[in-house]
């Protein structure tokens, strides 16, 4: 085989999460009463536009979650030898970006380095100048041609992106066109935004994203579109790699805390008495430790453990991965308490409701009552909490990385980019592009998540339902 698949722990959990999501989606699709609130979400233009953006992030994150080790060429002595370096599909797709490293900082779209260097000419002269970049804009002959060249390429990429978009719109129209309806009428229905679902908004969002992607993909082959960092790595590539870190923290944290929160919350409310006392004691104790400090304590302990047991982790990637997972676990521990409290309160109310009493009277066991009657009726609380927590967790990653207890410093993450940007902002001239890039990517994800979760909350919260 030309490669050896590597399953990092977080990868496996991501696959589990994906499978759970698909199962949940299929289950929802077969139950009318569950479909109703989702249909309400689907009617909100803002929510659907956000969903499209979120899906793009998820696609990038998933591509970055299939890891493998490439086969080392030239040194096989009968057996296959695989590289120590763990790569992902995203790395493969962005190989040109990874390979084209510069020496140090360079501004976005620059063709010359950020700092001056002394160059020695063949005739013996020594001149202080901004050296040309190895890769960024290397095809441009004269400095004056650069802007024209960029414009030309932006135009070409935009045209290509627009073309792809038109194809998508056309295939959508083909699918949406009613029997024996004139094409003009179908287009007019679309432009006017007819129908319950915001098809126009979704298509426009898709169009904008395709044009942006086409530009980014094409231009980044010739320039460093977000500049390069201190060691000359392409910042655009780093931002893309950070997507997975942000998504993992936002989703896996809730995945690991959900079973505990649901089980304990429902048990406390259902059994009351000493079970309730014990569970309340546990979550009050955990929630009374300030979150950052608990995370700091746990990560410090982990650091000591990893430093003393280096042999357990076979690669730097695995070491960074285990730290990411522990971070998710600890964040989960600090965040399950609020959901547990909500579920306990709701279960306390539910257990007195007639149908629960009836189920008990008919001889249903406690487990059956909790699983079949109470859990489905608190599902909306769980769902709302999960989507509302997501954006907060993505933001928390940055703060934790700054405090020094976030993801591994060698791991690509927006938090780490911002932390390094703190020193870059004090440079003269200013190095602003790392910060700007982290900002754009992070803001896009968090804003989309916030807008989408608002729509989900409005649709699922019975108090807000009209």
């Amino acid at each position: 085989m030309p490669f050896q698949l590597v399953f990092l722990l977080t990868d496996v959990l991501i696959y589990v999460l994906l499978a759970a999501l698909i199962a949940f989606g299929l289950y929802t699709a077969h139950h009318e009463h569950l479909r109703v609130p989702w249909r309400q979400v689907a009617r909100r233009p803002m929510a659907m536009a956000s969903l499209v953006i979120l899906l793009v992030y998820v696609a990038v994150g998933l591509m970055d979650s299939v890891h493998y080790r490439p086969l080392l060429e030239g040194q096989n002595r009968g057996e296959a030898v695989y590289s120590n370096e763990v790569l992902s599909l995203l790395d493969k797709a962005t190989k040109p970006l990874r390979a084209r490293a510069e020496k140090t900082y360079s501004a976005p779209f620059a063709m010359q380095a950020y700092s001056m260097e002394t160059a020695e000419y063949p005739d013996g002269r020594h001149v202080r100048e901004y050296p040309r970049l190895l890769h960024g804009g290397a095809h441009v002959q004269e400095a004056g041609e650069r802007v024209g060249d960029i414009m030309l390429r932006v135009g070409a990429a935009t045209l290509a992106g627009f073309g792809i978009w038109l194809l998508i719109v056309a295939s959508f129209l083909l699918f949406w066109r009613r029997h024996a309806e004139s094409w003009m009428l179908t287009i007019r229905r679309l432009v006017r935004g007819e129908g319950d679902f915001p098809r126009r908004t979704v298509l426009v969002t898709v169009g904008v994203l395709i044009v942006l992607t086409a530009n980014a993909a094409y231009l980044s082959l010739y320039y460093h579109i977000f500049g390069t960092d201190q060691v000359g790595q392409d910042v655009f590539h780093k931002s893309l790699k950070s997507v997975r870190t942000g998504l993992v923290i936002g989703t896996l944290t809730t995945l690991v805390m959900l079973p505990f929160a649901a089980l304990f919350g429902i048990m406390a409310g259902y059994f009351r008495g000493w079970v309730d006392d014990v569970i309340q004691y546990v979550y009050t104790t955990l929630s009374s430790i300030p979150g950052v400090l608990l995370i700091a304590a746990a990560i410090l302990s982990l650091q000591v453990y990893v430093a003393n047991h280096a042999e357990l982790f076979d690669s730097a990637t695995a070491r960074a991965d285990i730290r990411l997972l522990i971070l998710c676990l600890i964040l989960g521990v600090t965040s399950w308490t609020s959901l547990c409290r909500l579920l306990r309160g709701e279960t306390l109310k539910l257990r007195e409701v007639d149908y629960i009493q009836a189920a008990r009277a008919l001889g249903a066991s406690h487990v059956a009552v909790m699983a079949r009657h109470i859990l489905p009726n608190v599902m909306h609380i769980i769902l709302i909490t999960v989507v509302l927590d997501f954006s907060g967790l993505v933001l928390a990653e940055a703060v934790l990385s700054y405090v020094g207890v976030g993801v591994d410093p060698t791991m690509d993450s927006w938090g780490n980019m911002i932390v390094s940007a703190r020193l870059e902002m004090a440079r003269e001239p200013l190095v602003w592009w790392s910060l700007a890039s982290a900002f754009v990517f992070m803001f896009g994800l968090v804003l989309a998540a916030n807008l989408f979760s608002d729509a989900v909350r409005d649709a699922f919260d019975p108090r807000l339902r009209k």
Partner: protein
Amino acid sequence: MIGYIIRRVLYAIPILIGVNLLTFALFFFVNSPDDMARLHLGVKRVTPEAIVKWKEDRGYNKPLLYNAANAGADKLTDTIFFRHSVKLFAFDFGRSDQGRDIGYDIYQRMWPSLAIALPVFLVGILVHITFSMLLAFFRGTYLDTAGVVLCVIMMSISALFYVILGQYLVSMLLRLVPISGYDVGMEAVKFLILPVIVGVVGGVGASTRLYRTFFLEEIGKDYVRTARAKGLSELRVLFRHVLKNAMIPILTGVVVVIPLLFTGSLILESFFAVPGLGSYTIDAIHSQDFAIVRAMVFLGSVLYIAGLILTDITYTLVDPRVRLE
């Protein structure tokens, strides 16, 4: 009332014991003191003698829970658990791994923390209530929609951006105030202005949006309709009737953080180089000083529980319908 408070304080004791046991387990069971010593002294080149000395200097050379070598009560008191964890209950924080008196450091550093956290807290509440009332007054108009959108945008921006941009714009470009630092007395004001502004602006999005829903909830109630029906102007209704009632959830929500103001803000203090407890904690984390982190965990929990008790008391004070039993 007094009886209730006493009971709440007594109830806090088992929780603090739980916190204490948890941190003890986290720091001493997951890793032995030997591991800690090795990390501090450098993992690779370290002699057994150096480890023994490191542990002796910090009192980590005792058994964890039970010292069989001693007689009588010393069997329990001459242990790491008693010396480093139980003593926290008497607010005896002991010495840091660098050998400094933690209790003294905390006492010195909580005032700069308070100097930032208190203005951020007070100005923040004022600003957030003003903005949310404004949005509630213009509810249903474009101003309201634009305000809510702005709130969502502002809460989607990481707190770190506010600090970095604030420092860059105000201190580096406009040169209005120093970038960072701290001073005693009135001289401190010029160092405090920027962190306070940044702290308030960073919190505007989430709080304004939340408080707006409190106001809107009250505005939909019957007594507001009655007030309007008897001919009061909208402004008067808002200030005299709605504000008072909307203050109940707002007040009870913010009271919990009042004791925690002493521990300051991690990000603000470390970016602006304020010698408070927030930067103390961050420095301890960076230098892996376990004793300080342990002390701060305990202190933070005590203050948080105090905040919870304060919240319950505030409930009875601002809402006569609530009776504590």
